[in-house]
C-alpha cells in the first residue's frame, strides 16, 4: 500500500508541492540543506543547495512533471536555466570549496531525447575543460525509492491510523485542515499519544522525524492541489510542534535530531505565507466563491487573512521580503482594512492582536494601547454573567461559531455550543488586562477592574508541559481563577512584567513567528503566559518597570 500511496503522491504533486518533502529526503540521505528558494523566480538556476554526504556542494533545479515525462521541447525551454545551474558558481556562504554538483530533479520520467541532450552537454563541457560541470538527473524512480525507504521506517506495522492517513489524502483540499485527524496521525507517528513507546535509539528517532515529514507531505497533497495555503502552513506547523513534543517526551536532543527537518518545514510555512500574500495581491477584496454564501464567512476570512498578512509583515521585515511589491501591498492593505475585521469569538483575539501590534509598529500613535483597552472592554461587556451575547471560548472555530449564530437557518443539531453556558468567564480577559497594564493606563485599568473581577479567568494547563505542543492534551488542569475583589496595582504590574513564557517549550518560544502562528491556529494555547510573551516580542510599547524574561541554555 505504501508504494501505491507514494506513486499517487508523485503523480499528482507539482514542483512546489514536492520541494519540501524532497528536502526532507535529502536530509534522510545525509544532506544538510543550506538554501531552498522561496521566490517565484529561482536564483541562478538553483532551487535547492545542500552539502552532500560526500562533503561537496550539491545544487538542484526542480521541475514538476506529475504523471508525465520531461520532453525535449520542455527541456529546451529550461535549458538556459540549466546552463545557469552548471556555469554559475554557488556563492552561498555555507557552500564548500570547489565546484558544485548539478542536478535536474523531476517527479516524472525523462524522455530518451532529453537523456541524449544532457549527455551531449556533459561531453561538451568535459571536452571544453570543465569536467565538473556535469548535469546529473534525479527522476521519478530515485524519488520513489527514497520516499519508499523513508516511509518504510513507519509502515506498515507501526502506524495504527492508516485510515486517518487515507482520509487525509482523499480529504477535500478546500476545507480547513482537519486538526483532529492530523493530531492522530502525527501523534501516532511520533509516539506522543497515550500508549506510545520510546524509540529504540537516537538514530531511530531521527528516522521517524524525517519519515513523519514525508507522511505530512503525502497527507496534504489535496491541500497543495487547491493552493490552500493556510492548511499547508498548519500542517507543517503541527509537524514542528509535535516534533518538539516528541523530543521532550522521550528525552532526545531536538537540535541534533529535528532542527534540520523542522527548518525545512519552517521554510515551507514561510513559502505558503508568501503565496497567500501573492493571492491577496491578486484578489485584494478577499472574496471567494458563491457570493450568497460568501457573505456569511467573509468577515472571518478577512480577519484571519489580516492576521496572517500582519505576521508576514513582521517576518519579512526581519528575514527579508520576497519582493518589494509584497511589502507595498501588505502595508497598504493593512492600513485600510480595519472595518472588516470581526471579533467573532475569543478564538479571533490572537488574530486581532497581531494586527494591532502591526498597526502599533507602523504608527507613532497610541493606537495599540487604545485598541487593547477597547478589546478588553468588549470582552468584559460581552461575557458578563447571564449575557446572551458572550464570545464563544477559543475552542470553537469559525465554523462552529457560525453554526451557533445561524441556528435559525441550520437547525440546533449542528450547534456545538447549544448546551453550553459561556457567560461569566473568559480565556483572554486576563491576558488583555496584562497587555493594558503595560501601557501604564492605570485609570483605564481601574475603570475596567470591577467588571474584570466579576469574570472567572479560564486557563488550561497541560500535563506534562510538552503537551502544550499538541492539538489536545489527554491530561491537564482546567483552571477557573476567581479574581479578588480588590487588587493592588503594583501586584498587577508584577504579573504583567512576566515575559518568561512559562509553560511553553523553549523551542517554540525561541521562534516568535512560529509561536504566533501556533496561537492563531490553536487559540486556546494563547495562555496569559503566551500572550504576555508575544506582546513583548511584537510590541515595543512598554511603560512599566522592566520585563522579567526567561533565561534558558540549550
Amino acid at each position, binding site marked *: 500500500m505504501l508504494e501505491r500511496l507514494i506513486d499517487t503522491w508523485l503523480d499528482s504533486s507539482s514542483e512546489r508541492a514536492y520541494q519540501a518533502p524532497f528536502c526532507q529526503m535529502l536530509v534522510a540521505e545525509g544532506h544538510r540543506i543550506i538554501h531552498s528558494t522561496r521566490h517565484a523566480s529561482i536564483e541562478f538556476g538553483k532551487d535547492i543547495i545542500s552539502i552532500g554526504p560526500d562533503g561537496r556542494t550539491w545544487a538542484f533545479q526542480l521541475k514538476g512533471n506529475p504523471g508525465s515525462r520531461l520532453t525535449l521541447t520542455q527541456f529546451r525551454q529550461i535549458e538556459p536555466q540549466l546552463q545557469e545551474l552548471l556555469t554559475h558558481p554557488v556563492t552561498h556562504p555555507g557552500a564548500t570549496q570547489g565546484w558544485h554538483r548539478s542536478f535536474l530533479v523531476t517527479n516524472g520520467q525523462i524522455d530518451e531525447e532529453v537523456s541524449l541532450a544532457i549527455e551531449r552537454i556533459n561531453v561538451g563541457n568535459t571536452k571544453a575543460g570543465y569536467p565538473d560541470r556535469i548535469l546529473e538527473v534525479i527522476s521519478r524512480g530515485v524519488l520513489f525509492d527514497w520516499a519508499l525507504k523513508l516511509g518504510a521506517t513507519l509502515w506498515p506495522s507501526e502506524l495504527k491510523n492508516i485510515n486517518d492517513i487515507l482520509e487525509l489524502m482523499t480529504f477535500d483540499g478546500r476545507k480547513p485542515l482537519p486538526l483532529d485527524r492530523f493530531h492522530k496521525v502525527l501523534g501516532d507517528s511520533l509516539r506522543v499519544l497515550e500508549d506510545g513507546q520510546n524509540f529504540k535509539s537516537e538514530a531511530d528517532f531521527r528516522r521517524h522525524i524525517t519519515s513523519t515529514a514525508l507522511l505530512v507531505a503525502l497527507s496534504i497533497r489535496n491541500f497543495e492541489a487547491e493552493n490552500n495555503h493556510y492548511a499547508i502552513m498548519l500542517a507543517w506547523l503541527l509537524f514542528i510542534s509535535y516534533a518538539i513534543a516528541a523530543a521532550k517526551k522521550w528525552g532526545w536532543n531536538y537540535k541534533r535530531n529535528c532542527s534540520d527537518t523542522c527548518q525545512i518545514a519552517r521554510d515551507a510555512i514561510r513559502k505558503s505565507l508568501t503565496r497567500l500574500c501573492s493571492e491577496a495581491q491578486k484578489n485584494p477584496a478577499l472574496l471567494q466563491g458563491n457570493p450568497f454564501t460568501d457573505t456569511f464567512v467573509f468577515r472571518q476570512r478577512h480577519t484571519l487573512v489580516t492576521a496572517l498578512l500582519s505576521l508576514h509583515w513582521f517576518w519579512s521585515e526581519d528575514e527579508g521580503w520576497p519582493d518589494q511589491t509584497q511589502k507595498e501591498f501588505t502595508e497598504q492593505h493593512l492600513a485600510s482594512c480595519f472595518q472588516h475585521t470581526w471579533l467573532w469569538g475569543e478564538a479571533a483575539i490572537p488574530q486581532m492582536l497581531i494586527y494591532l501590534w502591526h498597526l502599533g509598529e507602523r504608527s507613532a500613535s497610541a493606537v495599540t494601547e487604545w485598541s487593547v483597552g477597547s478589546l478588553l472592554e468588549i470582552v468584559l461587556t460581552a461575557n458578563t454573567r447571564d449575557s446572551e451575547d458572550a464570545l464563544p471560548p477559543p475552542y470553537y472555530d469559525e465554523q462552529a461559531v457560525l453554526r451557533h449564530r445561524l441556528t435559525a437557518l441550520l437547525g440546533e*443539531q449542528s450547534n456545538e455550543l447549544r448546551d453550553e453556558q459561556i457567560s461569566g468567564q473568559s480565556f483572554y480577559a486576563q491576558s488583555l488586562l496584562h497587555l493594558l497594564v503595560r501601557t501604564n493606563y492605570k485609570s483605564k485599568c481601574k475603570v475596567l*477592574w470591577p467588571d474584570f473581577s466579576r469574570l472567572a479567568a479560564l486557563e488550561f494547563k*497541560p*500535563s506534562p508541559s510538552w503537551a502544550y505542543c499538541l492539538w489536545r492534551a*489527554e491530561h491537564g*488542569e482546567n483552571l477557573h481563577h476567581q479574581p479578588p*475583589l*480588590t487588587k493592588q*496595582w503594583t501586584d498587577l504590574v508584577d504579573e504583567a512584567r512576566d515575559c518568561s513564557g512559562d509553560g511553553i517549550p523553549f523551542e517554540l518560544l525561541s521562534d516568535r513567528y512560529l509561536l504566533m502562528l501556533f496561537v492563531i491556529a490553536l487559540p486556546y494555547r494563547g495562555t496569559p503566559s503566551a500572550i504576555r510573551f508575544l506582546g513583548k516580542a511584537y510590541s515595543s510599547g512598554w511603560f512599566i518597570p522592566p520585563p522579567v524574561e526567561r533565561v534558558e541554555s540549550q
Partner: protein
Amino acid sequence: MLPDYPEIRDEISRKLEDFVRKRSWEHLGPGLNEISRSKLHEGDASIIVRPDGQEDETDFKEVLSEISIDQTDVPNLTLNEILTRLDGLAEGMARGQAEHIIKSLSDGVERVGNVVEGKAQPLSPELILEVFDKIQLDFDEDGKFQPLTMLGGSNASKAAEEAFRQLEEDPKLRKKWETLIQKKKEQWRAREADRYLAG
C-alpha cells in the same frame, strides 16, 4: 456482514442521543437544570482557584444509566416505544446527576460551615431567616436581590411557601425580614465597593 444502511442509522442515532440529552436535562427539574454547564475540551481535571489562592478540585463522577432491549422485541418496536424507553434512560441519568450535584453542594457548604441545623423541624420563617443570614446575596440596580433557587421535596416546597407568606404578613416577622435584607444589601454594597484596583 449482512446488508446494512449505516448512514441513516447514524442520523437516527444522533437524533436519539439528542433526545436523551434534552430529556435528562428536563428531568433534572427547575433549579438543578439552571446550573451552568461547560464542556471540558481536554485534560482530566477541573480546579477553581479562589481569590485567596485556595484550590477546589471538582470531583468527576461517571453517571450511568442502562436500558436493555430484548432481541425478540426489535422487529416490532415503534418509535414511541423507543422514545419511552429512552426517556426512562434519561430519567436515570438525571437522577444520577442530581444525586451527585446535591452531594457536591452539601459537601461544599459543610466545608465552609454554611449549614443551618433544622433539627428535623418543618421549615419555619425563623429557619429561613437563619439561612438567609448565612448566605451571600447579590442585588440588581433596582435594589432587588438576585433570585435564589431552593431545592427540596414537595412537602418542603409547601412549607417554604407558607413560611414566606408569614414573613410577608406577620408584622414582627416582616420587620425582621426587612432588617435582614437591608443588612444583606449593605454587605453587597461593601463588596461591590471593594471591587477596585488600589494604588
